[in-house]
């Protein structure tokens, strides 16, 4: 019984981390990028590659995976966001991020293979560790640390405050001399690093699998919508709710209807409280 | 006009019996004739901000009514309330006797209320003619299924609307550009196209949001001619504008707003020479 709870929280933590990544990118660009789930995929795949494939120590693998994520975040801004935002056609970024997400998924699939491959143990631990297994606690810990880290970043650092300013009114921020393009680029780099870190931490849970991105984009988005766009606490709550719902419905009804149930939750929230549990009315992207 | 001459002032008051008492606050709404489009004691608040405070405005058919005021005075808010993009916090909007309060923008279009936008909102990918025809949507008899199966009635309806739209376009001066893509138009052409689109709706009232913005003096004269022709056809015109000279030249009545309140209401001469209005525009 506890194992259902713990595994639900662990997958929920990955969803929550993805929702946090959405928030960071949305705050400076007002864009919800379809590449969001793929960052975690890159973290898991490259983590496995560096550690198992190249035999590097896990800390190097971690840094490497996070670097790959940060690089892909930057690439997302350069390719899919920057030029597109400049044009007047509002929803081209949906197409460009969809295109980039497809490209990265297929490229990784061609290189890494289409079968899920194992992710290495990071801390020496027996495989019969049950609910204390690191594959559960690593993602949960990382998600919480990330959320706290973001709060500190926004409240205590200069850059964090610039992010918030841009999030409120990008036009006014630019008028005040804030270098909005560079801030946005930075936010995408940070988001990329965060996403890869989450994927790395959850690697033992999800395995290194090229097709993880799209379902995580969807589930991370459901967590975001449930918790409320723009709220980091909401991201944690939404992620936990979705993860637990998935785990318990699997346990009681069987795992065949996971996606249906997840989307059902999304639809329920959108009908009852469209801005999410902790979201504010005005942050709905149009 | 000599402001200190009491007989002149009285004559003016007689000519427009609904003039407000001196002061800044509300103007008693005109008696609700069913042909008018009326904003009755309307207030609009956005959170803590009061954009309009107890303002009344009535538009009559066959009349050009100017709405002026400095930035932030609530002109566009009033226009958005009349056209249905906002709902009033207090007060009512009435047309043809019907209280419009929650009526959608589309419903108001069907009732014959047309509008243009401060920044022209054209379909750049379509031709000028297509853009103008779009204005006649509510007069198109074509349902989706009928259109799908290519029924003759749909083709006939389309042809009739096309002919009318073409006439309107010639009328506003865009006859040379009927098949041009709308994103290739000059600024003045865009503005006039929006007006043609509004007229294609066969409106009882057309609400214009700063149509003179970015126009040359010659183009503004043309615009004035258009507005007079529209008025003479019996359509009521609301002209929200910054170009106060133009407003005073072309309007039959003028209302001035400042920070959401109605300051003065009357003929152009009355408004232009009102001390409060002068103070607002020239500074204390």
């Amino acid at each position, binding site marked *: 019984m506890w194992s259902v709870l713990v595994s639900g929280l662990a997958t929920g933590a990955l969803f929550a981390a993805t929702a946090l990544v959405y928030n960071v990118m949305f705050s400076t660009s007002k864009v919800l990028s379809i590449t969001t789930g793929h960052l975690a995929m890159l973290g898991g795949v490259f983590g496995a590659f560096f550690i198992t494939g190249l035999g590097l120590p896990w800390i190097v693998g971690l840094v490497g995976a996070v670097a790959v994520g940060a690089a892909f975040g930057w690439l997302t801004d350069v390719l899919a966001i920057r030029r597109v935002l400049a044009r007047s056609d509002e929803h081209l970024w949906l197409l460009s991020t969809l295109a980039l997400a497809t*490209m990265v998924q297929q490229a990784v699939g061609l290189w890494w293979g289409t079968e899920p491959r194992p992710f290495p143990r990071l801390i020496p631990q027996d495989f019969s560790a049950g609910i204390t297994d690191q594959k559960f606690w690593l993602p949960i810990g990382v998600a919480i640390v990330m959320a706290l880290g973001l709060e500190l970043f926004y409240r205590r650092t200069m850059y964090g405050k610039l992010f918030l300013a841009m999030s409120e009114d990008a036009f006014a921020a630019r008028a005040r001399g804030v270098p909005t393009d560079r801030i946005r680029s930075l936010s995408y780099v940070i988001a990329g690093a965060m996403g890869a870190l989450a994927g790395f931490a959850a690697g033992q849970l999800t395995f290194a699998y090229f097709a993880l991105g799209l379902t995580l984009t969807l589930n991370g988005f459901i967590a975001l919508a449930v918790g409320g766009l723009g709220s980091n606490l909401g991201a944690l709550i939404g992620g936990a709710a979705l993860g637990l719902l998935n785990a318990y419905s699997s346990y009681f009804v069987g795992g065949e209807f996971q996606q249906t149930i997840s*989307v059902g939750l999304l639809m329920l929230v*959108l009908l009852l409280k469209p801005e999410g549990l902790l979201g504010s009315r005005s942050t709905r992207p149009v | 006009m000599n402001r200190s001459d009491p007989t002149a002032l009285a004559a003016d008051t007689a000519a427009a019996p609904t003039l407000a008492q001196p002061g800044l606050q509300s103007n008693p709404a005109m008696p609700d004739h069913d042909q008018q489009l009326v904003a009755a004691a309307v207030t609009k608040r956005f959170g803590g901000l009061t954009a309009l405070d107890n303002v009344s405005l009535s538009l009559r058919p066959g009349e050009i009514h100017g709405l002026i005021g400095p930035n932030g005075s609530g002109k566009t808010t009033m226009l958005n309330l009349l056209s249905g993009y906002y709902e009033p916090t207090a007060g009512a909007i009435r047309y043809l006797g019907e209280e419009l309060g929650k009526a959608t923008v589309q419903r108001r279009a069907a009732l014959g209320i047309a509008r243009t936008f401060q920044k022209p909102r054209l379909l750049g990918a379509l031709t000028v003619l297509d853009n103008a025809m779009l204005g006649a949507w509510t007069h198109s008899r074509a349902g989706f299924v009928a259109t799908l199966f290519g029924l003759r009635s749909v083709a006939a309806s389309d042809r009739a609307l096309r002919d009318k739209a073409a006439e309107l376009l010639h009328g506003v001066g865009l006859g040379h550009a009927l098949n041009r893509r709308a994103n290739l138009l000059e600024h003045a052409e865009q503005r006039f196209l929006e007006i043609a689109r509004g007229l294609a709706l066969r409106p009882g009232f057309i609400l214009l949001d700063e149509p003179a913005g970015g126009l040359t003096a010659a183009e503004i004269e043309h615009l004035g001619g258009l507005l007079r*022709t529209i008025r003479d056809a019996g359509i009521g015109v609301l002209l929200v504008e910054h170009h106060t000279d133009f407003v005073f030249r072309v309007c039959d009545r003028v209302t001035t707003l400042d920070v959401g309140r109605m300051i003065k209401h009357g003929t152009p001469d009355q408004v232009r020479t009102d001390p409060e209005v002068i103070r607002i525009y020239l500074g204390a």
Partner: protein
Amino acid sequence: MKKSATLVVAGLLAVTFPIWAGDQYQLHLAALIAVFWVLIGGLNLVVGYTGQLSIGHVGLLAVSAYTFSILAGTQGLHPAIATAAAGALCGLFGLLLGLPSLRLPGFYFAMATMAVALIVGEFIMANDGLTGGGIGLAAPTFPTPFDSPAGFYYLVLALAALVTWLTWNVARRMWGRGLVAIRDQPVTAQAVGVPVFRAKLKVFVFSGVTAGVAGAVFASLQSYITPDTFVFELSLFFFVCIIIGGRGSIVGPLIGTVILTALPELVAPLAKLGNFFYGLLLLAVVLLVPEGIGRVFEVISERLRPRHIASVPVSPDLPRLARALGARR
């Protein structure tokens, strides 16, 4: 004049294709293009004209393919009836899916449609008694004269021509303008009285019906369907055909469909790249020619034969305007 001549020639080529086609394989490919166009043509109104980012139509294709295979195969109904039933069922699906999701903002709607594709996949695997699960189902052929490759080709060609005609009707009339308004200037669409939600819904249901018909003939063409066929990437493929062909056009996405279906078959290295290539193509189009490849041709021909647009000052014809306004009072 040039345009209709090209169309006539293309039409003749299509109709006579079985005669001059190289082999059965090419005929099969041509039929596949026609089948895809039946779906994409309908979806074009949703994506290309109304601007709704629906990326889940592979789910509808799957529902229809399985419905057809079950009704016409296991249950023994006449394939024509099974096709009609599949079409109606998918139209209903379109309605049920569209009602809650078409009011949502762009990204939310896209995610909802993507979720549908994934849910359908789940459902197929979960009900393996009905659907054969991972093993799949056989799909019957149509009765004579449509059971030969050439006969079937003519059947789907006729369906493709029908969808082209239907959507062309919508595109060139007032509805077409209204849909483009919803896509590009929703505020204007409201201001002229377009019932935005209802319009989106009608078009979406129509795209469900065409997907339904497409799924039935798709199953018959493939003669055997498995869940592997209906991966999310197929939805992406439909979507890319439309965007590359150009939004707001019927012919553009048609050409896009022909080219993108045939390309991997003709250019072998591309087949290996598969969906990476589609993603790359989509990105290139969005960044470089967002109006689609059709527009590229227009721009090139405008450069070759430049029509100088003389700057004519606007000069109203007030009497004419007065007459136009008087005529309607």
